[in-house]
């Protein structure tokens, strides 16, 4: 039997309180972020959405869970090992390092814009280095007590603690350092390793160590089966690291590595069922909702663990993953893991340790209320986000316009924010419960609760043999070596092997050395990274038909072969940006960056007015840098398209061929295309409320609510949006404009809209116009024709169809007007002739033509119009 070793109450208390304070701050960051989904301008004076999100996730993982786990370790390690931790002084250093050199500077730096765009690894490299030092110190602090007794009598919690401390030390650099040196998809493979290892090798083992400790400590009887617990332990440590790439399924990462992760994810689900069954059986007699608070939290944590793990196994399946990846389903999943399973386990461990502190205050009522509020809040949030994810996935698959998925998500985002209220209240009550109330009141809680449980079975404790057999002793050593081997295997299979395969693929498919980014593009990339743009916009078109239809050819590995760190992303709130180069005009991009809702009324993107000197017309360097970076996204593939013949030696798998043989490289629905390109036939529809609603939602921000060309963004765009009250269009031309946009202007195409929607918009546009042909005398028309033939035909063509010989080679390639299908009011013609049209090749003629000439040519242009009603279709 081992001796009792003292528990360092000061360190338990210090880490416990630090955990709760960092938790409340992290929740506050998350709450603000969630409100910005509903009101994008909310708390606009705070650091941007992306920075707050970085602070939220790192705060939960390192601040809250890190401190809570350390508090538990200071309580449990002396009891599990029978030895005190290495040094109380080292404990003080570790506490100071974790909170004053990791959390505090980490938060300050990411909020100030110094960060890494890597999921669960957002703190900058300098802070990562401190984390590594702290992890080494934690290993020195907690591991030696276990090894002084040998491995053979280690309880399962001890195994999990040892595993977590050792493997976090190995895996932390995988996600925090390696992607800073390995570009593109290969870097993402390492990122994926860490994303899953952060949960699988840091959070889960320590959470399970708590559950396996608290359950017997609270019930007063041993766990159901130590054997099953060890099967679970080895199974989890073998399989967790092999799951990493399931965060990048259907991406450019080699399919062999993806298949490995999918199989491992499925097997992991089987192992989790074993672990959970054992934990549930270990609680027998405690009731469905145990009375003892620590056990109650532990019990709910087990339930959350089962759900989140099975959900994880299922969502690695390629078919389901094609539907729900990038949606709020994944956000619900991660909240269930970190806020449900891990947080409830951490609270359980913290409560248990607190109950054992003789001088600690404890308010049982507040803790009881905290449990119910947290259970309610997290359940509602996760169910809500899961449904939201299914809705988003369905809308994305069906090809509906992107913004409709944003609009459809709004009610779910409101519920998510509402669910955060009981969660925040629950955490405040938890802090209250551990800082108010009578001193030492926690000590009696377990005893009282035990009276409500079934008494332990009257089974005699088996006599313990004095010494284990040599074979068993050796088996543990073998198992320890195997553990390290598992980890090396996982890094090899999911990191190094994909890296090598990708290098070969890049060498065979890359058309040539990629041009380096310009300084402005590089600076723009840094801004894009620090503002968390990659957390809403992926840079990977997946190998799915829905992605190909919406965005174009799937992203090949070589396209990101200079991206360090990679920005593939794992969430889409906005559309993918892999091929955004050339999809929008610079002015549109600047207006969008300055105030997104000025050009996309339903957008929830954060505004970045600080990148401008008061107007999109006066961009500062950050704005032009971001613009330069956006214009570099997809440029290389665009230049190489259609893809050059790959090297003869290249063995192309079906996925690569899928990308190379894609019918369209850039399927961006808003990209402007040349006039006449595949215009659909539109039905003739009357003016309707739905058409008006479509107008308000999509067109009014530029053209104004009544089509007068006076929308909010009008002054920022060149050429300015047309005043539709002064123009009358042939429906065929309107269909063309709506389908293809106006090439090289900010008037986008609306190819993601149905024919009915476009026909409704045609009716709305036509309703704005009251322009009628004015009759003119023959002499006026003849004078107008003379002027026209002298000055206008080279662009607008002999018959006015916009097909003059110079039309295809204009310095600004906006197509000249087709006067046979566009009728301008006389005043509008006169104005345009006098002033020209900024942002087009239409020059001002006011100083070269007199009033009579301009009037005459205006009449002549009207005479060219063949009539809006003459054949509805083009």
């Amino acid at each position, binding site marked *: 039997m081992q001796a009792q070793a003292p528990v360092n109450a000061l360190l338990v208390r210090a880490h416990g309180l630090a955990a709760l304070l960092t938790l409340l701050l992290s929740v506050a960051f998350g709450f603000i972020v969630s409100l910005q989904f509903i009101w994008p301008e909310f708390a606009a004076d705070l650091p941007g959405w992306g920075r707050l999100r970085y602070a939220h996730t790192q705060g939960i993982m390192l601040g809250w869970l890190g401190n809570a786990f350390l508090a538990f370790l200071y309580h449990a390690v002396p009891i599990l090992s029978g030895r005190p931790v290495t040094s109380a002084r080292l404990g003080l250093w570790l506490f100071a390092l974790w909170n004053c050199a990791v959390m505090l500077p980490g938060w300050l730096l990411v909020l100030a814009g110094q960060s890494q765009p890597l999921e669960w690894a957002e703190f900058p490299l300098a802070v990562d280095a401190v984390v590594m030092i702290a992890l080494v110190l934690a290993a020195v602090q907690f591991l030696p007590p276990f090894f002084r007794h040998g491995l053979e009598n280690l309880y399962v919690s001890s195994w999990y603690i040892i595993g977590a401390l050792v493997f976090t030390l190995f895996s932390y650099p995988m996600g925090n350092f390696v992607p800073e040196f390995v570009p593109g998809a290969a870097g993402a493979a390492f990122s994926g390793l860490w994303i899953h290892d952060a949960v699988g090798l840091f959070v889960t083992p320590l959470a399970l160590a708590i559950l396996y400790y608290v359950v017997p400590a609270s019930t007063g009887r041993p766990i159901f089966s130590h054997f099953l617990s060890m099967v679970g332990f080895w199974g989890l440590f073998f399989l967790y690291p092999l799951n990493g790439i399931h965060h990048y399924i259907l991406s450019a990462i080699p399919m062999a590595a993806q298949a490995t992760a999918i199989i491992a994810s499925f097997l992991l689900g089987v192992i989790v069922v074993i672990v959970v069954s054992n934990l549930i059986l270990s609680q027998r007699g405690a009731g469905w909702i145990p009375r003892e608070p620590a056990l109650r939290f532990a019990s709910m944590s087990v339930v959350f663990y089962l759900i989140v793990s099975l959900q994880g196994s299922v969502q690695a399946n390629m078919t389901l993953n094609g539907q729900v990846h990038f949606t709020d389903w994944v956000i619900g999943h991660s909240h269930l893991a970190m806020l449900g399973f891990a947080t409830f386990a951490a609270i359980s461990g913290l409560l248990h340790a607190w109950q054992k502190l003789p001088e600690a205050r404890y308010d049982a009522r507040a803790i009881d209320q905290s449990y119910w509020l947290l259970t309610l809040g997290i359940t509602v949030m996760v169910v809500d986000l899961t449904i939201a994810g299914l809705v988003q996935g369905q809308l994305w698959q069906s090809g509906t316009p992107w913004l409709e998925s944003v609009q459809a998500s709004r009610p779910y985002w409101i519920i998510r924010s509402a669910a955060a209220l009981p969660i925040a209240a629950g955490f405040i009550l938890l802090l209250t419960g551990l800082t108010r109330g009578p001193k030492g009141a926690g000590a009696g809680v377990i005893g009282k609760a035990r009276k409500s449980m079934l008494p332990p079975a009257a089974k005699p404790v*088996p006599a313990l043999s004095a010494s284990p057999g040599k074979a068993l002793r050796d088996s543990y050593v073998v198992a320890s070596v195997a553990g390290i081997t598992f980890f090396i295997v996982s890094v090899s299979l999911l990191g190094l092997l994909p890296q090598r395969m990708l290098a070969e693929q890049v060498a065979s498919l890359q058309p040539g050395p990629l041009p380096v980014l310009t300084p402005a593009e590089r600076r723009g990339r840094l801004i894009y990274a620090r503002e968390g743009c990659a957390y809403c916009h992926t840079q990977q078109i997946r190998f799915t038909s829905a992605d190909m239809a919406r965005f174009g050819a799937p992203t090949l590995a070589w396209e990101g072969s200079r991206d360090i760190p990679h920005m593939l992303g794992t969430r889409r709130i906005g559309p993918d940006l892999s091929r955004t180069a050339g999809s929008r005009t610079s002015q549109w991009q600047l207006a969008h960056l300055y105030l997104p809702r000025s050009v996309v009324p339903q957008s929830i993107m954060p505004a970045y007015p600080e990148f401008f000197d008061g107007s999109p017309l006066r961009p500062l360097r950050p704005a032009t840098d971001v613009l330069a970076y956006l214009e570099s996204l997809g440029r290389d593939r665009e230049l190489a398209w259609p893809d050059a013949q790959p090297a003869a030696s290249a063995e192309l798998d079906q996925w690569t061929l899928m990308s190379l043989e894609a019918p369209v490289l850039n399927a961006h629905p808003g990209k402007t295309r040349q006039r006449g390109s595949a215009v659909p036939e539109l039905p003739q529809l009357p003016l309707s409320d739905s058409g008006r609603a479509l107008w308000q939602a999509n067109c009014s921000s530029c053209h104004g609510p009544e089509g007068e060309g006076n929308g909010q963004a009008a002054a920022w765009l060149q050429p300015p949006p047309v005043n539709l009250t002064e123009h009358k269009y042939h429906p065929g031309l309107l269909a063309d404009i709506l389908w293809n946009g106006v090439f090289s202007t900010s008037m986008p195409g609306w190819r993601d809209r149905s024919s009915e929607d476009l026909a409704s918009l045609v009716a709305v546009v036509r309703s704005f116009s009251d322009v009628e042909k004015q009759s003119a005398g023959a002499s006026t028309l003849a004078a107008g024709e003379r002027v026209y033939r002298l000055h206008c035909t080279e662009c607008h063509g002999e018959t006015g169809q916009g097909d003059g010989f110079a039309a295809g080679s204009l310095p600004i390639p906006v197509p000249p007007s087709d006067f046979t299908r566009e009728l301008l009011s006389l005043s509008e013609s006169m104005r345009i002739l006098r002033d020209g049209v900024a942002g087009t090749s239409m020059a001002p003629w006011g100083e070269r033509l007199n009033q009579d000439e301009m009037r005459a040519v205006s009449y002549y242009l009207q005479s060219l119009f063949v009539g809006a009603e003459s054949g509805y279709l083009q």
Partner: protein
Amino acid sequence: MIVSQLILAATLLLGLGFTAVYLFRPAWRQRIEQPKYLLQQQLQQLQQLQQLQHSAKSKTSRQNNPGVGGSHES
């Protein structure tokens, strides 16, 4: 794909290995289960220690402050 099959095989072997040891080596089974009883003893010891400390403290408190029931309200 070969790698996936290897993982599947390795996982099954691991599971089967554990099960075989458990089923066919009763002595090992007892050893494997032993840590859970050891922990229980540790926890019971701790509980007793705390109860002793608690009673000693209550006693001291009563001696120092006759008529007051101590600071603990467990």
